[in-house]
């Protein structure tokens, strides 16, 4: 059958083994891209004509902010798939996404705040972009809190999945906040349809960091997913075989 590959993706032992095999590839690719991107961004790229060297925080800030949205979308889609098709592994993937996404969101808020102090003259303003990103952090934390408040795994899966799916509404709001409303935050330089507003010497390291952070997320997700599967299937016989091997 043509669908067997798809059905295998719902099988915990198969995913457990597949994740173990794939993790090193993603981890090494992420390491190469991030080290290269940091070298290009912090050392090779020229300073900005107005911000000087302070602009270099973009090499951590923009990829973190991008990942905060991307991880949330992944989490919400997984949770939705788990909710509709009752696939346990999809709930496990959504649960694995949350702490990673919360960390990226936190990094984006902190780096943005430091840059804001130097450039805008303030650490924090209740600006649409900043506020909606803070709400995203609370969505991640609320999702994690809701999960750990329930002992029954199935109830935790379903209740938290509804929260994750509802929260997806915030993702386009964050992205378009700087275009829909007057905002202190600048419009996107790279994630837009027109030409990037940056020369290649600054842009290439930034794209390497964006790609590197994405691959890093996949590597972290695979590691967390294996831990999540181990915890969920701890009574299953295939786990005993896999662990004692």
């Amino acid at each position, binding site marked *: 059958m043509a669908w067997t590959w798809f059905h295998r993706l719902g099988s915990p032992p198969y995913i457990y083994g597949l994740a173990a095999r794939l993790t090193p590839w993603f981890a090494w690719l992420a390491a190469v891209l991030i080290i290269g991107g940091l070298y290009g961004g912090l050392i090779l790229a020229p300073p900005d*004509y107005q*911000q000087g060297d302070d602009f270099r925080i*973009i090499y951590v800030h923009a990829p973190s902010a991008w990942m905060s949205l991307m991880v949330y979308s992944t989490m919400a889609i997984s949770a939705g798939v788990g909710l509709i098709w009752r696939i346990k592994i999809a709930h496990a993937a959504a649960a694995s996404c949350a702490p990673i996404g919360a960390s990226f969101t936190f990094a984006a808020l902190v780096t943005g705040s430091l840059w804001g102090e130097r*450039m805008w003259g303030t650490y924090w303003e209740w600006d*649409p972009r900043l506020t909606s990103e803070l709400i995203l952090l609370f969505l991640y934390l609320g999702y994690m809190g809701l999960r750990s408040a329930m002992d029954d795994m199935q109830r935790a899966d379903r209740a938290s999945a509804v929260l994750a*799916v*509802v929260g997806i509404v915030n993702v386009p709001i964050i992205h378009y906040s700087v275009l829909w*409303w*007057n905002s202190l935050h*600048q419009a996107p330089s790279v994630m837009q349809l027109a030409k990037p507003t940056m020369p290649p010497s600054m842009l290439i390291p930034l794209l390497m960091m964006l790609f590197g952070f994405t691959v890093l997320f996949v590597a972290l997700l695979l590691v967390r997913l294996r831990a999540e599967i181990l915890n969920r299937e701890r009574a299953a016989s295939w786990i005993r075989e896999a662990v004692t091997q």
Partner: protein
Amino acid sequence: MTPRRKRLVLVLGIIAGVSVAGALALSAFRQNVTFFFDPTQVTSGAVATGERFRLGGMVTKGSVQRAPGSLEVHFVVTDFKHDVPVSYTGVLPDLFREGQGVVAHGKMSGTTFVADEVLAKHDEKYMPPEVAKSLKKRQAESATPGGA
């Protein structure tokens, strides 16, 4: 309908419902969500008199005047349609420049906006200093009569 189809419709329905609710709430609070008002909105009376608000726009080139011996500074904020003069006493952020974006917090006093906080608004353009210099040079050349 199969149970699975029912759940699919339910989930899509929830997303659609929350999106509509969010859109309605955000458009109802449009005034509150907006971080600043531009000079056109201010001159057309979008802000009640005596109310504190944020004014945002470009600092007009050549409009910045510093009072000698004090931190008092006067400049004009424009959106290229209307101008609002601003007075401010205090330290300006690093990125405050003529021809750059700025957001000031304060209230109107007559026709002048008296600010107690000034933030620099950065744009999305990044370039190395040499490129900025040569861009400026080329602009100056094309501005002089007879220049290419």
